[in-house]
């Protein structure tokens, strides 16, 4: 059946063609950003535009770090994102464990209260929260960027689900062996729930890293600004320094690219948590 085989080959060729086209559309903005970050501002303005870094130039990156304060922004972002991630893991593990495996009065009602937080968009709370944070004296301080996000309804929900999957017999056996709740939590429950914990960790980190509106509201000095807000500063710089802006975006995206490469599985699970599996 050569005709049929020819047809299959043609279909495959079209398939690859569409894949390549889509890949080009997705990648082009990223590619050209990397290229431009390696060019001089004059070369970027050159017409017709250069699509390859024929004479790669590191000055954009040097300026991004020297005058663009990128190192400080990066440090702040890492600090804030790590603190939020660790905090969310701790509060979610504790609350998730309580809701899954401990019995106490009003447990279900309190769980509904936790779920209710999922319905409040944080954009609707920023007016009062900026007042609160100002009253605490936290403007331009790390706690303002971190503390409001240390608890998460979604995280608690996900870990409760994971802990509900811990076999009851394991729990009973551990009790017979004299394990208290704390030991059972740290030695048995958390290790068993590791996939959920890892997914939440990646999800929390990504969310914290990408925050934009809140950091904009509670910081106005370079000392505490995060990378995302730093990009806003860089966007405002002149065309003579446009390569610095491009270098800044590459630097800001790089840690998450690394995360994507290293933790692809957890990232996928974190992003789709609550979506596909319910």
């Amino acid at each position, binding site marked *: 059946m050569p005709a049929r085989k020819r047809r299959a080959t043609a279909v495959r060729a079209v398939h690859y063609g569409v894949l390549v086209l889509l890949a080009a559309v997705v990648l082009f903005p990223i590619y050209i*950003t990397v290229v431009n970050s390696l060019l001089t501002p004059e070369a970027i303005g050159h017409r017709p535009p250069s699509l390859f870094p024929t004479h790669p130039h590191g000055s954009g990156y040097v300026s991004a770090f020297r005058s663009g304060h990128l190192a400080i922004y990066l440090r702040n972002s890492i600090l804030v994102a790590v603190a939020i991630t660790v905090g969310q893991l701790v509060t979610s593990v504790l609350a998730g464990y309580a809701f899954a495996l401990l019995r106490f009065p009003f447990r279900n009602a309190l769980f509904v209260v*936790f779920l209710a937080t999922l319905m409040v968009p944080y954009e609707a709370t*920023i007016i009062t929260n900026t007042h609160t944070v100002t009253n605490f004296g936290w403007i331009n301080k790390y706690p303002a960027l971190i503390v409001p996000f240390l608890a998460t309804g979604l995280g608690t929900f996900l870990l409760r689900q994971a802990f509900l999957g811990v076999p009851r017999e394991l729990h009973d056996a551990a009790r017979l062996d004299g394990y208290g709740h704390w030991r059972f939590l740290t030695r048995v429950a958390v290790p068993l729930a590791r996939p959920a914990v890892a997914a939440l960790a990646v999800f929390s980190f990504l969310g914290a890293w990408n925050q934009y509106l809140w950091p904009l509201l509670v910081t106005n000095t370079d000392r505490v600004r995060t990378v995302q807000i730093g990009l806003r500063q860089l966007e405002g710089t002149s065309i003579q320094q446009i390569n610095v802006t491009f270098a800044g975006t590459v630097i800001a995206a790089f840690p998450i690219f690394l995360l994507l490469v290293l933790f692809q599985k957890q990232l996928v699970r974190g992003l789709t948590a609550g979506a596909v599996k319910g």
Partner: protein
Amino acid sequence: MSRTTAQSRRREAALGYAFIAPALLLFGVFVFYPMVKTVQLGFFRVPPFPGLPNKPVGFRQYRQVLGSHDFRDSLKVTVLFGLYTVPAGIILGTGMALLAHQKLRGIGVFRTIFSSTVATSVAVASVIFFTLLNPQVGLLSYWLGKVGGNGILQDPTWALPAVAAVTVWQNLGFTFILMSAALQSVPDELLEAARVDGASAWRRLRSVTLPLLSPTLLFATVIGGIAAFQAFGQIDLLTQGGPINHTRVLTYYLYQEAFLRNNDGVASVLAVALFVITLVLTLVQLRLLERRVFYAR
């Protein structure tokens, strides 16, 4: 015996409360208190001059703001933004997931490329396109023949579609990952059975794959809708709501009132509106999730 049981129960309850206390305290301070306070702030008019006390006006401010052209216009822009971003994003993301679901040589590379925009934040994506659309040096401006004068982002007709396109691009990685994960849960046997029965590829897609994807498609639609109502970063970085409010989505309008005009009264009414809209969308989403959990069993 019963005494020790009662005691251990009390201890368990105390531990339970201790475990949820940190999160509960944070929710109280940063979620529930602000929500109540915001509703209340909506009942007070901010004086035209600082230093005067806020004036209680009952529901008048709610009526005025919600009935105003500014509010309706920003609602219209937000819905339009949702219509530009959600269907396009889902169709592209699903299409890419379907194309990348085949067993072909080198398909892993395409999967990685299609996921890659999850590494870009709203700010990264916005700054990239802001520079590419710069009317003086922007590459896209050059290719689109929009050099000099007003750029696309300053064009009343094209600003919102441009911001929407940036948003679609930035979310594509996420939509792709979401739809790929959903595709993986479509049983191969089912597709194989349909193939044996002589169903064409198109027929298999329409009658087997898409129905099985429908819960995730609905989910993506709802969270896309919610995201449209919470869009802020791309507006702030690309257009600041302009030109002449053509891209002023609800959250950006709220930000302008609260932080650029210092009018907490009007801003609070907008925040309550935002809350109610999101609430409705979230309830729809939870209903869908519930149904899916039921399916899974």
